[in-house]
């Protein structure tokens, strides 16, 4: 064999080996990343930074701008200094409640940081005046002020966003029905003996301050979380009111203690429509209500009534401390099969004749006139009184007698239900005890007996819910971010990302709008932010993969990669060694005779074989 051929053959061999090794390594280098990509879970990227931004307390400074407009008689309209009035109000307000009260310094900065401090809420007032002579001073003298008193008062040129304060001259001769009258629309009126500026300030400013202070404290207190037991009014209020939901289902149930005594029916549909529809219509801005009703026979309560024969009216009674067990949840069908909206139950309970008349004793032991109570975050119960007392003996002879509650029968019951519903939904009645007013000023609060909620109350609720939604939305987003960060093998689909982005967008919009004073729009944004963030958090695809520790992973992959990687590495090493060697040879002897070279080759080859 000629040396040329042999070299050729050699080269050929070497190149082969190179190809093989190269290709295999190539496969590895390509294959591993491919495998890595193909087996990892899909995770859409979330905007962590933006989410974090909402956790910073300063970003949560919510400042409502309140438009106040004084409506003054023409004669003094001009000589009232608006700026002074404005400053006065603002300073008064800020004096009593420091914006973003200093609790967040005190609260420890743990990972629940964002929960422990209440948000900063401010009200910035700006005052303007209108002057009109629409009313003579007799207006306060109307003996029978009726429902539409406010409406009569309301200016034709009023815009929805501003609160009107009417300053009226009071007649010396006759006393008006009140000194200060807080209307059901966005207005209150002050009757003054003499129209002077300091009088105006003296009588009107405290009312404003009171109104908005109460609101402010109410909102703030709804965020503080304290673990220790207390029965403060705030705590009870927080216990009572439902969390915000865009939908509530309201169920009116008629529970018949014993169907053998009566077979009862009620015109509930008519009653609800005629008493409640304005209320639901007004509130539907904030959340929707799915209303339904049912009649349950054999609604026997597990609570056995005690009998009292004292003070000459024999009756059965229930004690306050036991009332919690009044509901017979095992047998009363109250749960809804389909909707997952929070249910609010209202129960009209007709006690069996064997237990009537049935009254509730308050904690002091007296009979409660209303005979009604509410269960926090659950609903309200009214125990019927009329049925008790009336034809109780009517059916001594076995045949059961029918009774139907007409719309008029239901009025007192509906009034109780409405009161309970208001408090369950967190509506605060505008009925504060005015401070820093001069004594014996008669303040009169009107209630809205048509809508069941005054504009003042509605606005307060709207603002409160707005703040709550904004905070909750940002918290939910933060929780979501935390969660996704902590569980590395959880799938995150694009729709989650979309929803998060959408929620953030809504938050931004809300904060942009908030100073505009268009509360409705702001609320809508806040609501959507909350809904979107919650949908993202509770998405069914967000269930993470089961816990699978790393050592298990190694255990699974080891049997493959270890045995495969050994020959790969060795061969590579060998190859490098050989190349070095060959180079050396080439250098030291260029022209060597065949057999000598041959011997070397043989040696090397045998050596290789051994190796």
């Amino acid at each position, binding site marked *: 064999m000629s040396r040329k051929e042999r070299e050729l053959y050699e080269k050929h061999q070497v190149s082969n080996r190179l190809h093989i090794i190269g290709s295999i390594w190539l496969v590895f280098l390509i294959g591993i990343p491919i495998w890595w990509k193909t087996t990892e879970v899909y995770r859409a990227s979330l905007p962590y930074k933006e989410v974090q931004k909402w956790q910073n307390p300063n970003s949560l400074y919510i400042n409502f701008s309140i438009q106040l407009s004084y409506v003054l008689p023409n004669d003094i309209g001009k000589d009232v200094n608006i700026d002074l009035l404005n400053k006065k109000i603002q300073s008064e307000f800020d004096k009593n409640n420091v914006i973003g009260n200093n609790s967040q310094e005190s609260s420890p900065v743990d990972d629940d940081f964002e929960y422990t401090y209440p948000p900063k809420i401010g009200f910035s007032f700006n005052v303007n005046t209108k002057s009109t002579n629409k009313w003579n001073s007799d207006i306060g003298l109307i003996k029978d002020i009726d429902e539409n008193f406010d409406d009569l008062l309301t200016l034709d040129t009023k815009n929805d966003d501003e609160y009107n304060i009417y300053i009226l001259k009071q007649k010396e001769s006759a006393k008006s029905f009140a000194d200060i009258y807080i209307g059901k629309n966005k207005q209150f009126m002050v009757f003054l003996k003499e129209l002077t500026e300091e009088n105006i300030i003296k009588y009107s400013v405290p009312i404003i301050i009171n109104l908005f202070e109460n609101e402010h404290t109410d909102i703030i207190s709804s965020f503080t979380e304290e673990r220790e037991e207390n029965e403060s009014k705030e705590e009870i209020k927080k216990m009572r009111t439902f969390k915000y939901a865009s939908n509530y289902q309201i169920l009116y149930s008629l529970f018949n203690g014993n169907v053998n005594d009566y077979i009862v029916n009620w015109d509930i549909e008519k009653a609800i429509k005629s008493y409640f529809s304005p209320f639901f219509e007004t509130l539907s801005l904030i959340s929707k209500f799915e209303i339904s009703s049912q009649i349950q026979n054999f609604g026997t309560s597990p609570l056995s009534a005690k009998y009292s024969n004292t003070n000459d009216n024999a009756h059965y009674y229930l004690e306050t401390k036991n009332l919690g067990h009044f509901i017979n949840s095992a047998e009363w069908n109250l749960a809804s099969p389909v909707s997952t909206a929070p249910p609010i139950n209202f129960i009209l309970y007709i006690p069996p004749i064997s237990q009537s008349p049935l009254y509730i004793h308050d904690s002091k032991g007296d009979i409660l006139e209303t005979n009604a109570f509410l269960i926090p975050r659950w609903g309200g119960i009214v125990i019927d009184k009329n049925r008790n007392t009336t034809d109780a003996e009517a059916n001594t002879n076995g045949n059961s007698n029918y009774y139907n509650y007409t719309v008029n029968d239901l009025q007192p019951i509906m009034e109780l239900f409405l009161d309970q519903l208001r408090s369950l939904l967190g509506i605060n009645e505008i009925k504060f005890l005015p401070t820093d007013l001069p004594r014996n000023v008669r303040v009169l*609060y009107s209630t809205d007996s048509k809508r069941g909620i005054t504009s003042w109350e509605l606005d307060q609720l709207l603002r409160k819910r707005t703040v709550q939604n904004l905070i909750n939305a940002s918290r939910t987003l933060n929780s979501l971010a935390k969660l996704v960060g902590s569980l590395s093998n959880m799938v995150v689909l694009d729709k989650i990302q979309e929803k998060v982005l959408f929620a953030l967008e809504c938050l931004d919009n809300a904060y942009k709008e908030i100073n505009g004073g268009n509360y409705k729009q702001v609320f809508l944004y806040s609501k959507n932010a909350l809904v979107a963030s919650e949908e993202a958090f509770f998405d069914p695809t967000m269930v993470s993969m089961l816990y699978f520790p790393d050592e298990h992973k190694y255990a699974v992959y080891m049997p493959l990669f270890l045995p495969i990687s050994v020959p790969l590495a060795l061969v590579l090493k060998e190859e490098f060694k050989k190349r070095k060697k060959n180079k050396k040879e080439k250098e030291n002897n260029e022209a060597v005779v065949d057999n000598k070279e041959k011997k070397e080759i043989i040696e090397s080859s045998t050596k290789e074989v051994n190796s």
Partner: protein
Amino acid sequence: MRIFQTHIYIISIIFFFINVCRSEYSSEFHFPNEREEIIDGFFSKSRHTNNWAVLVDTSRYWFNYRHIANVLSIYRTVKRLGIPDSNIILMLADDVACNPRNRFQATVYNNAERKLDLYGDNIEVDYRGYEVTVENFIRLLTGRHLPDTPRSKRLLSDDRSNVLVYMTGHGGEEFLKFQDTEEISSYDIADAFEQMWEKRRYNELLFMIDTCQASSMFSRVYSPNILATGSSQTGQNSYSHHLDPELGVAVIDRYTYYNLETLEYVTLQSQKTLQYLFNTYDVSLIHSTPGVRHDLFERNLNKVLITDFFGAVNNIELTLKGYKLSRGSENDIPDIKQNTIRDKSDEKIEKINHNNDDHLIPRNEYKMIKVDFKKSAMVSPLFLLGSIALISGIIFISKIVN
């Protein structure tokens, strides 16, 4: 004190009425510096307003009768103490009551004397048979349910709920077997609780587990306000109590049995605390050392009533007056129209939901990927490497030959 206040209140009421009569006006005058009206009612000391119970039996087959009896015993207790079925999520991995092997059809007893039938005539099992899976359990806790899961299968608790989670089954160190096919690990439970806390889905949570090496199951929990107790320490077994010769199987486990001995005497009004319950644990009776973990729990156990978790809370508030209403005219009844104020954002959110519709995805999509995931991970590189090595080899052989 309260009595005095009520007194004042009633006086003021009367005073108001006088006012009302004088001014012929239905509303009330308020004068500066009056007394504030007070709330009358009864409120529980703990901050919660509702109770939930999640009771899980994870083991299948007739010979695990005792596990189902454990769960049903607790179910009876919480129901007796007033938690409604709508707030109890009951998971039973098998149906022993109507099992053909059961000599006494439609009954489950936790005692060889067979005095009390736990199954009774009023029971609602929310998850049964194949539905009892790790996936469903975690979905339940975290609230991430498939679309149109019925209300009765959801844990709709809020920031004022006290939740009792009771589990029983066959377990080992840091895992509990579901249905003899899959396991849930202590890490999964800890993460699930954390997610509950993140969304404030509980106020306080009591985690109670009766299985072998029970304490290892709550060793990883790290969320606040969780109180945990288990039948045995890590490395210990838990044992069954006694056997019913006519059924031929053990009817209850020791730990649950001795818990019940206390719980049976608890009534709605009783003031017994959890500390009292824990003190009754007797190693010589239970044959294993029950574990209690309260480092995450803020309240003092001497203050925590048993009924805070095993019973329904009874907060009530008396309604003192109605809200005056004037009804619309007799003849025309208005219809309830809830004016829907919508803006573009509403449509947008619907769009998002519509784009990726959950309903049309078959169930398997939601199955938590477990071993088959690993398998695919295994197979893909193997196949890749193996095949390519083979091909390259063949090529080069042919090259060598000619």
